[in-house]
Structure formats: C-alpha cells, structure tokens
C-alpha cells in the first residue's frame, strides 16, 4: 500500500512533457467502457472538453483485443485513455519547483466560476485516488456544470513555494496554451484557495480532475471502470478529442 502523495511524486518524477513543444511522457488514466457506448461517450467527452472541465484534450480510444501501453483491452470493452492531472505536478516538479500535492475533492461551480471545495480527501491520508472513488459517491454534478454552468466537478489542489511564483505562472500559461487547459485557479501566497488552507509561504494551484469525463459518463448511467494514475505514455501517441 502506497499513500497517494507518494504515488504522485513517483509518477511526477517520470513525467517529461515539454508543454512548449507538446512532446514527452504524460500520466494517463485508463477507463473501460462498453463498445456500444463509444459514440455517446465520444460526444460526451467532446462536450466536457468544450466546457473546460477536462484536464487535457488528448485521448485515445482503443478497440477490444488491441493493445496500448501494454494493456490488452478485453472483449466487449473499449479502452478510453485520458491524461491525468498528475502530469501538471510532474511538469512543475521537473522544473525544480518545490511542490506538495494536497488532495482531491469536489469543487462547487456557479456560473462557470469555481466557488469553493465542498469535499476534500488529502492525498497523504489515502491509498486510493480520491477522484476515482468520489466519482461513485453521487456527489458530482458534472452534467449540470456542462449544460447549465452550475454544479460540482472533481478537482485537485497542490501547493508550491511562493519563491517560484514567476516560474509557476509561466508554466501554467504554457500548459493552458497547449493541450492542457484544465488549470482552474492559481492562489495568492499565504492565502487559502477555494476553502483549502495553504502552508506558510506557499500558494495553491487547482486543476480539473482528469476523471471529470468519467464521472459525467457515470452520471449518464453508462457502465465504466476506471483506474486513475495508471502509468506513463508518450503524448504523441494520443489523439486530439476535437478530431473525432
């Protein structure tokens, strides 16, 4: 058993994404959906991307029997690979920015603006990914956010030392401008962010959970199985959601 903050750090060290050139290794989540749901799921993931609640626009759909990243997709299922927001931690860590992953939770959204976290599970307190399990608690309202601008989404928070603020700002801009628009909020130093307290001399960074589309699929009543933070993949081998 490994606590999730350690899992994140282990993965973060292996991320090699250069947001400027959009090359390198990123962290992925693997979900299985039923073959017959593929069209509905694709449309839903596209809508989720448009409404800005996915971490990244990179995806990969893999047919039954085919292999991707060493996973052979079982019969009757389609593999849906998406990018995990741990990738952001990786990019920051690899730039030498002091970072502590705090936790994952449910973020309330009003008129498309985040208002506050209403649930939080600290990474150092859990061995299972908070966003993976919160998907099943009936506390998300992803579809409401997508179609009415008010609801709850999954999001996570980390804190970085304020000394690195210029580098953090620059990195977040680079990420947002490339295929990773899911950064939600950058807090001021020494200030709680969206209801979560931050250590002295640190500032908070909130990103949309990579599992928001999965939670939306669940809310629609479709079957889905997800394993978050599954491993690393070259971003060049993924497809762009808007091309479907």
């Amino acid at each position, binding site marked *: 058993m490994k606590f999730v903050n350690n899992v994140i750090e282990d993965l973060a060290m292996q991320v090699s994404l250069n947001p400027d050139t959009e090359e390198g290794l990123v962290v992925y989540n693997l979900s299985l959906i039923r073959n017959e749901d593929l069209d509905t799921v694709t449309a839903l993931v596209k809508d989720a991307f448009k409404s800005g609640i996915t971490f990244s626009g990179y995806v990969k759909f893999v047919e039954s029997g085919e292999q991707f990243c060493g996973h052979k997709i079982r019969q009757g299922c389609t593999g849906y690979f998406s990018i995990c927001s741990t990738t952001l931690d990786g990019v920051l860590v690899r730039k030498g920015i002091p970072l502590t992953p705090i936790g994952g939770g449910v973020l309330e959204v009003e008129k498309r603006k985040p208002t506050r976290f209403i649930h939080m*599970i600290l990474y150092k307190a859990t061995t299972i990914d908070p966003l993976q399990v919160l998907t099943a608690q009936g506390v998300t309202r992803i579809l409401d956010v997508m179609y009415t601008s008010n609801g709850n989404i999954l999001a996570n928070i980390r804190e970085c030392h304020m000394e690195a603020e210029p580098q953090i700002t620059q990195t977040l801009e680079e990420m947002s401008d490339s295929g990773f628009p899911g950064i939600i909020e950058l807090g001021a130093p020494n200030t709680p962010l969206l*209801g*979560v307290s931050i250590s002295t001399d640190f500032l908070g960074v909130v990103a949309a959970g990579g599992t928001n589309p999965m939670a939306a699929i669940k809310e629609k009543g479709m079957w889905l199985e997800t394993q978050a933070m599954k491993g690393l993949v070259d971003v060049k081998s993924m497809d762009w959601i808007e091309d479907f």
Partner: protein
Amino acid sequence: MIHTERKYIEILRILKEHQEPVGAKRLSELMAERGFVMSDRAVQYYLSYLDEMGFTQKVGNYGRILTENGTSETERALVGGRIGFIISKLERLAFRSTFNPDTGTGEVGYNLTRVPEPILEGVISCFEQVKRSGLGFFNGYRIIDKDPRIPKGNVGIISVCSITMDGVYQRLGVPVRMAFGGRLSIKKNSPDCFLDVIAYSGTTVDPLQIFIAAGLTSVQNIVRTGNGVALANVREVPAMAEGIIKDVSESMVKCGFNPPVCVGREVLNLQPEPSRISIVSFSGMNYIGNACEQGYKLETEIGAGNIPFSKICEDN
C-alpha cells in the same frame, strides 16, 4: 469574512442538532458554550441573514429551524474545517457511551439505517448473513419503526457503532485514536492484508461509505467462500495498554461483540507507528456493505446517537 462564515455555519450546525425550533437567546447561549461569544443582537443579525439566504426559517415565536438548503449548506461549507470532522463528531458519541463490558450495561453509540419496507426482508437476510459470519462489529442489530427520523414507508435498523469501543477505552483512561477505515482482504476466513486505507483525519467523506459506494467491497464472497473484501477500522493505543486490550476484548466478546481481527505493533501490511499498538476490528458497516452489494440502496447515518445496550439486545 472567514470568521463570519465560521460563526454562521456554527449556528446552522446547532440548529441541525435540534429537532425543535431554537430561539435567538438560547442560540446565543449555545454559541457561547462552543466558544463563540455573541450578543443576542448579533445572533439576531446573523439569523436574519440566514433567513434571507434561505438556510433558516422562523416558526412563529418559537425560534428558527433549518431548511433543506440549510442542512445542505452544513454539508458543503468550510471544507478545511470539515476535514477530519467525521471523527470529531463521533468523539462526542464515544464520550457519551457509558457502556461497561464487564456488566453489559450502559449506553452504546449506534448507526441508523433507513430501509424502505418493500425491501426489508431482503435486507434482513443480508444482515443475517453478516451476523452468522461474524463480520460485524457487534453480532446483532435492532429494528425500530417508531422514530421521528424514519420517514413513512420505511423501517429503521440500528446497529452498534464501533465508536462504542473508543468510549470503553477512554473510560478506562486509555487514549485511543481512530486512525483508518480500510478494506481488508480475507483469505480462507483469515485476514490477509489491507488493500486500501483512508485516514479519518484527512477526509470530509466517511472512508467506509466511500468504499461501499465505489463498489470496492465483497462481503458476500466472504460469506459464501471465506475469501473476499471486508471493511475494517484501525485504532491506535499506547503500547503500554497492551494488557488492557486483552481484558477489554474478552469481556466485550462475552457481551456479543466480535473479537478484534488482529492486535499488535506490526499488524498485516500497516506501517507501524512507534510505541503504538494497532487494533484492527470489523466494522458494523459490513452489514450495510453486504446489502449494497446485493443491489439494495440504503441510507445510513453513522453515529446517529446513543442508546442503552439492553435495547439492542432485545429480540426483534
């Protein structure tokens, strides 16, 4: 501003604990007990703000009650303060548990499950399976139907909350810390290893309810084959309490409780804490987990109150 929010949430929390309307004067007394000293006038000011927000509602001249929105606000606001709150809430029940395992008397803490009448029979057979397999915290439960908290067409099932054990230790002068809720792999009816744990101190959602809702238990498999995944709690007590644990466990077993799954400095795959002993025990939530695995959707309030132990032991 943050300070203000803390105060208005405390008012909502107080109202939530009362089933009857509470007046402004009484509220200002209760606030003071909790460390928020405010004049009646200030309380009035907050209350009119809360009325305006639709969180509270005036009931004639009796005082205020919480609206549905108000209840939901207490479950959403101040996320930072709510991390670990599940346990702070249960600590109160532990403190009020007067259960004495030597005499089998006193009060225990309980969980309350609401069961719609049409599925009652199915749910009870699931509870019976868990009882027979000894996978609960206490080997028994009590069915109630006359309680204002049970909506029409529903029946309540009371199961003993394992926080009762914390109460027993506290009364014996042993500091006890509820560390984790976890899912425990069982092989051939013996504990094998924890598959996942969540620390109570780091979450706003109950760990065991998380595992149940995410479909990560297989209590039914244990019942049928002796292999599966059950819910368990991990408590930590000072190492010098080793002798007391044995005595307490023995007398609790005599009262109908299941013995701890394991006790020790290094148990299963848990990271040992220096000079602390871990007590792993099955959770009463295995009753509910088994029913949920069978497709029964149940609502359970963990730590719903205290009740005399003798009432739980009466025949259903």
